[in-house]
């Protein structure tokens, strides 16, 4: 209760503010450090959200400083100390009550109007000429269908820069939520519903994303990757995906791998055109061309793929793909085959 208290409290507040500022700068500073950041938009929709969020944050910080400031000033100024007059039993003040009812209402108006405008803009129909992709959520991986190109792929979404992407979102089992933070907000995949969202990627590069709605054991492992490339690169990718799967040279390790693929039961769940018709697991037509496996959990290297095939549930808990009990030579052959499917 001594005279030192205001000094201490003021210093404490100052220290907290000083600690906060570099933290904020650090966060907004570099995207490389935070590849999955929602504060570094790379699409038109993402920027719309960002600008709205910035204006709301400004209001919120101003109100925060004013109200917490008033609280701190009141506590310091009217703390019990000798010589302080006996408090007057004030019961209220109508003018003040009206004032501090109207003031927040006005501030909320400044937040509400751009909010509603942004809602209608981002939930409008996708711009004409958009690339349509159907997204199907599965426990725990993503299926991407391109009706325009008759391509089906998984976990890595390829799109050209500058062209709007219109997604229709469905699920094969439980609720999932589709989220590439760099492209804008998330949207749920709900059974018995088809949801829509769109965005126009503005910069090439690879962006991580993941499922945002609890969907069971491996929810945390239901990751994905957005690959935004130049239009000509995208066309090349489309052409490669449209080509039929590569037939391995007879007698090669990959050819042995194909036999393993047919023997051990892979065909029950996976599609490889002309080889297997399964639709429970991801389409493997061009698995060798993907940069990651197991819903973007691991890099698609022979070593990682081998470990994955050896015991999938051990690497992705709850995974429906069973441990097949492959012998080492079978494993090597299967890896060679899958990696030949460029």
């Amino acid at each position, binding site marked *: *209760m001594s005279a030192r208290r205001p000094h201490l409290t003021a210093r404490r507040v100052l220290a907290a503010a000083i600690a906060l500022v570099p*933290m904020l700068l650090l966060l907004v500073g570099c995207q490389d450090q935070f*590849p*999955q*950041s929602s504060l570094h938009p790379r699409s038109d929709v993402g920027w*719309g*959200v960002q600008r709205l*969020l910035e204006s*709301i*944050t400004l209001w*919120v910080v101003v109100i*925060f400083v004013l*109200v917490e400031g008033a*609280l701190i000033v*009141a*506590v310091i100024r*009217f*703390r*019990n100390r000798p010589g302080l007059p006996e*408090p*007057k*039993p*004030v*019961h*209220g*003040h109508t003018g*003040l*009550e009206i004032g*501090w009812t109207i003031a*927040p209402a006005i501030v909320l108006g400044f937040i*509400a109007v751009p*909010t509603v405008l942004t*809602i*209608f803009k981002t939930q409008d129909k996708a711009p004409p000429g958009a690339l349509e992709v159907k997204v199907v959520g599965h426990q725990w991986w993503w299926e991407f269908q391109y009706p325009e190109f008759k391509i089906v792929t998984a976990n890595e979404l390829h799109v050209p820069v500058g062209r709007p992407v219109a997604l229709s979102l469905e699920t094969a089992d*439980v*609720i999932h*939520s589709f*989220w590439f*933070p760099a492209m*804008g*907000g*998330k*949207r*749920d995949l*709900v*059974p*018995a*519903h088809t*949801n*829509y969202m769109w965005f126009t990627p503005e910069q090439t590069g690879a962006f*991580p994303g993941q499922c*945002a*709605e*609890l969907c069971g*054991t491996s*929810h*945390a492992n239901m990751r994905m990757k957005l690959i935004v490339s130049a239009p000509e690169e995208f066309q090349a990718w489309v052409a490669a995906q449209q080509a039929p799967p590569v037939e391995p040279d007879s007698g090669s390790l990959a050819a042995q791998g194909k036999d393993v693929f047919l023997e051990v039961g892979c065909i029950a769940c996976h599609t490889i055109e002309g080889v297997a018709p399964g639709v429970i697991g991801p389409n493997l037509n061009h698995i060798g061309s993907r940069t990651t496996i197991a819903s973007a*959990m691991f890099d698609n290297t022979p070593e990682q793929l081998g470990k994955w095939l050896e015991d999938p549930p051990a690497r992705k*808990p*709850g995974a429906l793909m069973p441990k097949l009990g492959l012998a080492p030579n079978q494993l090597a052959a299967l890896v060679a085959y899958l990696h030949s499917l460029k």
Partner: protein
Amino acid sequence: MATTTHPVGGIAADHAPAEAGTGLWSWITTVDHKRIGVLYGVTSFLFFLVGGIEALIIRIQLTSPDSTFISPDVYNQMFTMHGTTMIFLAIMPLSASFFNFMIPLMIGARDVAFPRLNAFSYWVYLFGALFLNLSFVIGGAPDVGWFGYSNLTSKQYSAGTGVDFWAVGLQILGIASLAAAFNFIVTIVNLRAPGLKFMRMPVFVWMTLVTSFLIIFAFPVITVALVFLLFDRMVGTNFFVPSGGADPVLWQHLFWLFGHPEVYILILPAMGIVSEILPTFSRKPLFGYPVVIYSGIFIGFMGWGVWSHHMFSVGLGPIADSYFALATMLIAIPTGVKIFNWIATLWGGRIELKTAMLFALGFIAMFIIGGLSGVMHASPPADLQQTDTYFVVAHIHYVLFGGSIMGIFAGIYYWFPKVTGRLLDEKLGQIHFWLMLVAMNVTFFPMHFVGLLGMPRRVYTYPAGLGFEWMNVMSTIGAFAIAVSLLVFIANLVRSARRGPPAGPNPWGGPTLEWAIPSPPPIYNFATLPHVHRADPLWEQDAPQLIESVNRMSGPIHMPPSSYWPIVSAFGITLLLGGMIFGWWIGIPGLVIMLVGIFSWTFEPCH
């Protein structure tokens, strides 16, 4: 414990009812609202510690990327049980413990309207809580989140009994909440002392009334939803099963129609507590008393029209999103008005920074942060980046830890002397407060950022390289510091309950009726029921006469006798509902016990 102090005035002993017994049996059969309040308080604090341990396990797992401390299934059980425990087994019953102990004292009554129903509520709560936690040892705890979204909860995707324990457990707990809420509504409406008009009631009594109404309207909604879910799982109906033609979004509407009012059920009692403490330690009446009450009622009312702001990512369309955004923002206005009135109460006062006051001020400071982050995701486009991320985890913990829990601790430090007759140690209290305040900010503030930087909620792990590492380390350090602050509190509690300095009837100079009687209060509370002429009666000129009169016997006092039928009935109901999981051989005996209990209770003489 409630009967040792004799009231002021000489003839008390002549008319006083028999002293309450001691020993375990007297606690099992008690119908005294003060003892039931203590039972509620002790039990819910223990469950608060259980929920805290679950939180620490979560934090250990998330300290480093790709951690293998616990498996994903155990992790999912931990956050499901952490949320369910903190909401239903800790914060709600902690509030109920204040309702029980304080409401009759604050309105000048001898007990609640239905003392045996009150005991019944407590025992149902205790059995429901134990039942829910039984799942840890029988077949695995629920692991679908405290919000249990369909269709993950369907038999197809959750084959074990975890979801059944969750659904049946919440049904049992709902009975306790409903019975208690009806009890407090009747008590507050009917048992107020002469002259204690509605607009003279302490704000805490008002907020209890509003909370009780929220409970009786909100719990039927979740009850219906849980019945649907249990039918789906046990009988094969298709209320939420998409393959049977159902829309699983129905669950979300029902759940949040309950769930949003539930948030106010958790926060309004704390707001009431703080509204009692600020005037006492500012030596100044509450600024804008009617406005604070109307704001509370308005918040409670508007809480029914905002549920879909939990569902912006579901895709309800731009019109629904806009409506729910605007309605949500509207709630910020009465909430802000409350905060401004609290600050105005401080303004011009003479503020004594006792521990209770520090916690009340901490409540305001932290609740402002939680409220403002709430405004940020009231805006659907912003929310679509924030929902289901750690940003929302930060928000709810500023509201429920910084808000509700800070408010509850304020209440504990404020009313502990009334309950036990002894003061809590101020020095340990101050250490507890500052440590907890700093620790909670170290824990929860970084979560705003880690969420905006892309970390979803309810993930048992995250890969290295996304920049989440050091912020998660901070949160874990903070969580353990919170645990240390709780140890300080427990040490204080244990020490002060035995050796704390005697408090006297009114250690803080409080203005409300509970401070007019001895600490701890006699079993009958008021020897003579008070006559109240104004709000804050003990700050009036005639307070000495009031205190003298309420402690002077003016006639025989009738107190309800103790009864074991409430615990028998509660046990029967728990077995009956437990039979839904264990089978008829548990359910049928449960039914019989329940019927015998209720029948005997009905015809038990009450004098």
